[in-house]
């Protein structure tokens, strides 16, 4: 939400560009003229973030873990290695750690100090993940945070919050919804939401997808 308030029009100069558009344009121009960056490389980076990385990768990892017990064991043992072996991405930074939800334990991921996020498997983080309300409250009021997402956990489900304070990164392995026996990996992946892999939601129910 915070990013919607960025339009400070520069009336004095009659410009329609916002302060940040002007600043970033100046920054890119200076760094390009100094020979530090190539605008074509910047375009390629943006394209990769908009089209290649995203939660569809994490969803495939989760669906595989739901259907293949030996992959699930490998994932929980060493997610960096297991995800690499799937071949969906060509490199994973150190270290990716998968944490498993059970009916008695719900995991939630946060970074209270900045906004560390497993973007290789989930894409860039949403605004709420980077916001002060989430960063401040996830560690001491996780049920309240879940309520903001419209999510209620059973009272007897314990909550475990992982604060990403180093270069380790976490992905939640959500509970597999009931009524999905015999589903293909691909169909299962369509149930896996980004929020379910951060721990602020559940996987979709079978009735929620076509």
């Amino acid at each position: 939400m915070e990013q919607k308030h960025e339009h400070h029009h520069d009336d004095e100069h009659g410009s329609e560009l916002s302060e940040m558009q002007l600043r970033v344009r100046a920054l890119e121009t200076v760094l390009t003229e100094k020979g530090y960056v190539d605008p074509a490389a910047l375009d390629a980076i943006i394209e990769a973030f908009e089209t290649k990385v995203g939660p569809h990768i994490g969803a495939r990892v989760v669906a595989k873990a739901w259907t293949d017990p030996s992959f699930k064991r490998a994932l929980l043992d060493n997610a960096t290695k297991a995800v690499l072996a799937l071949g969906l991405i060509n490199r994973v930074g150190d270290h990716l750690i998968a944490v498993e939800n059970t009916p008695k334990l719900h995991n939630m991921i946060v970074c209270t100090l900045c906004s560390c996020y497993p973007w290789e498997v989930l894409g860039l983080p949403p605004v709420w993940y980077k916001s002060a309300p989430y960063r401040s409250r996830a560690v001491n009021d996780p049920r309240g945070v879940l309520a903001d997402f419209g999510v209620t956990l059973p009272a007897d489900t314990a909550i475990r919050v992982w604060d990403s304070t180093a270069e380790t990164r976490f992905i939640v392995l959500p509970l597999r919804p009931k009524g999905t026996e015999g589903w293909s990996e691909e169909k299962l992946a369509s149930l896996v939401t980004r929020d379910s892999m951060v721990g602020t939601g559940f996987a979709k129910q079978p009735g929620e997808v076509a």
Partner: protein
Amino acid sequence: MDGVHDMGGMHGFGKVEPEQNEPVFHEDWEARTQALYRAMSYAGVWVIDQARFARERLPPDVYLASSYYKKWELGMEKQLAELDLAGRDELAAGHALRPGKSLKRKLSAAEVPNVITRGSFARPAQKPARFKPGDRVRTKNIHPKTHTRLPRYARDKVGVVEALRGCHVFPDTVAIGKGEDPQWLYTVLFDGRELWGESAEPSLKVSIEAFEPYLELA
């Protein structure tokens, strides 16, 4: 540093507001900022904890009032000036006023698919790990004015070592140009009540990723 970036447990920021069908970038300048940061990282001008420390050193009112990518952009401007790679006068002019310096390398579009990944921070160990899973540890009561990854809410608290994560670049030294000084990294688990007192939800457990210098045996 004990700055406003260290938000764990603070009150008053309000509700979390998820956005339906959120785009990857809300504005073009956000995308350019993300890309400029990656390209300059590739050129070797900063590492992640130096970039974090630059954002942490923004004035607190600016930090709190700025969106995520605005903080990134302001942090980059600060670092570029400090490293004498681009002056405030040049950013104000919107053009280079002096020739660029020679950097380690320059990112090309062809190389991009190989660099859209997080870096590698594991390093060979300099000595054996001091703690093992199951050990009760107390986090130190430290308040460095420089960068640290031990959050305030988890200082001087007793927890249990849950896992050893290998030996990693130490943020506290690398952020201030004192080298990587690799340190063992542990997942340390705390009871909610140890962190938040009697008001904590009884079932809550919170872990941090703690570098060995943050810990002592309890």
